[in-house]
């Protein structure tokens, strides 16, 4: 069997049957453990979520008077209207996800959890919030209703005009 070994010991010895099967066995064991583990981890990431829709209808443009700030509680978004148009400003604090409140008697916003403050355009006035409040994309549905996409963001100077 090992005839070549005896005649030429300097040549690389081919893997014996026992070593090959041992390696194969251990390899198969670890491969199955690794793939099961990977499957277990993947299993924990849900593919279907039963969460609120992120595209929401917020009424017709005429429902909002010029210069108004309207808070839509179920969607955690402020609808701002001024002479430049409409903005949908997210009320989700950029620090740790609490809901910011509009300050009484002024156009600034503050977060009840850790004291972040934002100006009338959502820019950070006082930390710990690292970023200004996001502005969500507003579009017009064929029915004439405005639609806010809570997952699609536009720059804060971007206004929606009818």
């Amino acid at each position, binding site marked *: 069997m090992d005839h070549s070994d005896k005649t030429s010991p300097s040549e690389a010895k081919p893997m014996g049957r026992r070593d090959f099967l041992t390696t194969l066995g251990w390899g198969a064991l670890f491969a199955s453990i690794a793939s099961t583990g990977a499957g277990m981890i993947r299993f924990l990431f849900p593919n279907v979520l*039963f*969460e609120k829709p992120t595209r929401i209808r917020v009424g017709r443009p005429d429902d909002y008077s010029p210069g108004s700030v309207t808070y839509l509680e179920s969607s955690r978004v402020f609808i701002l209207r001024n002479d430049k148009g409409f903005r949908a400003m997210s009320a989700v604090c950029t620090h740790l*996800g609490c809901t910011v409140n509009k300050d009484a008697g002024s156009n600034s916003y503050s977060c009840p*959890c850790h004291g972040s403050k934002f100006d009338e355009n959502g820019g950070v006035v006082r930390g710990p919030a690292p970023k200004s409040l996001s502005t969500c994309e507003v579009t017009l549905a064929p029915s004439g209703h405005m639609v806010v996409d809570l997952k699609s963001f536009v720059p804060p100077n971007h206004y929606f005009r009818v």
Partner: protein
Amino acid sequence: MTEIIRLLSRFITGNRVWKSVFRAESPVTERGQSESIFHNVWLHIYPVKVRKDALRFTYTFCLGGVSFLLFLLLIITGVPLMFYYVPSVEQAYGSMKDLEFVVSYGLLLRNMHRWAAHAMVITVFLHMARVFYTGSYKSPREFNWVVGVFLLALTLGLSFTGYLLPWDQLAFWAITVGTSIASYVPWLGPSFKYVLIGGNEVGQGALLRFYVLHTVVLPLAAVLMMAAHFWRIRKDGGISKPL
């Protein structure tokens, strides 16, 4: 009277059932007494010999033991709570209120669970401080220190997962904030948050996941780690000696 007691004890201990449980006679020698501890599955956690110094209350303040006692109390009070608590967003808050106002002794069990949980965080922290200040983490006890750090993390994890279960405003926002902190971890953060709360926002997925972690995964991990922790105390030569 003594005759009655003698007959009664012979009746209890003289039969086959008793002898199948307790094979040996009551030990009379000191060696036999220590062996009866050493060979018993429930008692063998105790060392055969204890240094007198190690028993001094002001050396350990019994902090590790008190932490373990509180853990036992949390299991004893937590399991009955599971018979009434329903981990669904519609019923969680209501079943928690039922435990407080409707279920007999529910308020007592829930408050014992709550206060023992707070106390355990404190005693585990103080236990770690005691081990640090007495230098008990030094060789040969380094590994047991590491096991202890894992147990501290598990205690905090149990505290955090239990926080969501009442499903009130405090719970909701605490977990919203807490899991947002987790999402700040570089690269893996957002995925970690997603898998922890089973979605993008704290909802039914988060409640059920936290419930399973709180009642099964983390307690089981804690029990296994505690077994290793206590076993290592014995194998590292008992609790450290006061200087």
